[in-house]
């Protein structure tokens, strides 16, 4: 999303669109990124239980991925994973 300059923003910092919190990607200050190995994952969902930010995506009882828009890179999932299929990698942006 291209951010507007000061001349184009609404006066007084108001938000003119409802539901704009959906556009707020709270994970953009992450410094480490969890990398998940789908093949070796047993879908025990320990990561899902421990994730403090609801960033483990699950469908029909199976882990399907990580929500990088909101994951802060805390590493708890990698630490708690009993089969060690989540690795933390440095991330530069």
């Amino acid at each position: 999303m291209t951010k507007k300059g000061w001349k184009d923003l609404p006066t007084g910092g108001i938000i003119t669109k409802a539901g704009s919190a959906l556009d707020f990607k709270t994970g953009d200050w992450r410094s480490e990124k969890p990398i998940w190995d789908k093949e070796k994952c047993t879908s025990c969902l320990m990561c899902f239980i421990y994730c403090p930010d609801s960033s483990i995506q699950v469908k029909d009882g199976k882990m399907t991925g990580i929500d990088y828009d909101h994951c802060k890179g805390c590493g708890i999932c990698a630490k708690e994973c009993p089969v060690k299929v989540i690795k933390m990698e440095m991330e530069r942006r």
Partner: protein
Amino acid sequence: MPRRALTGNEAMAEAMRQINPDVVAAYPITPATEIVQIFASFVSDGLVTTQFIPVESEHSAISACVGASAAGARVMTGTSSQGLALMHEVLYQAAGLRAPIVICEVNRSLSAPINIHCDHSDTMGSKEAGWIQIYAEDSQDAYDSVIQAIRIAETVFLPTMVSTDGFIISHCMQGVEILEDKQVQDFIGPHRSAYSLFGGAPITVGPLDLQDYYFEHRRQLMEAMNTSLTTLDAVNKEFKQKFGRGYDIIEEYKTEDADHIVMAMGSTCGTAKVAIDKMRAKGVKVGLIKLHVFRPFPHEQLKKALSKAKFVTVLDRSDTASSMGGPIFVETRAALYDQMPKILFADYIYGLGGRDIDIEEIATVIEKGEKMKLQGKVEKPLDYIGLRE
């Protein structure tokens, strides 16, 4: 135009009656109490249609004002000293939210020690809050400036405070020319705001604004301040043209041939004019610059007005504890940095806690300045008037 004997407080209350704001939220404080007390009686007597909100503190008063302003209302309040200090954090919010609120302020010293009389410490404590600041010289000026302030605030979307010197103006009676109610309404026009909670599509006011946007929003505020001088000037010109009187951002008194300039704000300007007349009778080429607006600081106007000055005597009715002198002195010197080698400055802190200043005292510092001007050297860049050693 009817002329009535009014105190500064009565004149400001009368201006508020004619403005008929949608909302007034206020808490009493000496010496500004009367402004909203008189206004409250206008509300009770049905002379205005204002929603009056009595609150439990000045913090609540200005908070209610910000909420009402966000809702699209024309909002005013009155306060002084500790009351303005208690509003402090919300003053920044009013400015950041670009709420065009107008405060009728009465200058009073700040505690401790406790004192109810005039100096400019209270509004100087708010000079970085993003509010336009207008300092009235007398009741007429206060009345006219409050009316102008509505137009100014609602053009640049910056809150504006108009202040009078506590007791000296607020409680002293003076002949004041009052406009017709219709003239005031026509001049201020319908309320304008940057946005309104009742403006149609839903909006969010005051959301969290972090590293990625806060800077841009503050830059908007800086720009509004930068451009507001043009608006202040335009509104005053229109007022002058319609009603035959007005107040320039800086007023120059007998400065045409003056190489010695006295600078002051508020009621002292009247005293200084008499002192200047007296010194001129002795052949001293001295003039006065009255700062009518302190925020935004009129640096370009001052650069021009002081371009021929050799010596500047600054009268500061507050000391901001910077250890560098009063705020008028510090900011004027900063504004004139590029031409500094040519201009000598002396600052005098005076009148703290309401101590009187008289014609003789101002004439004495003008004489001192004349000596320093001839010597080409400032012995004491910071001194005091009327202080016991």
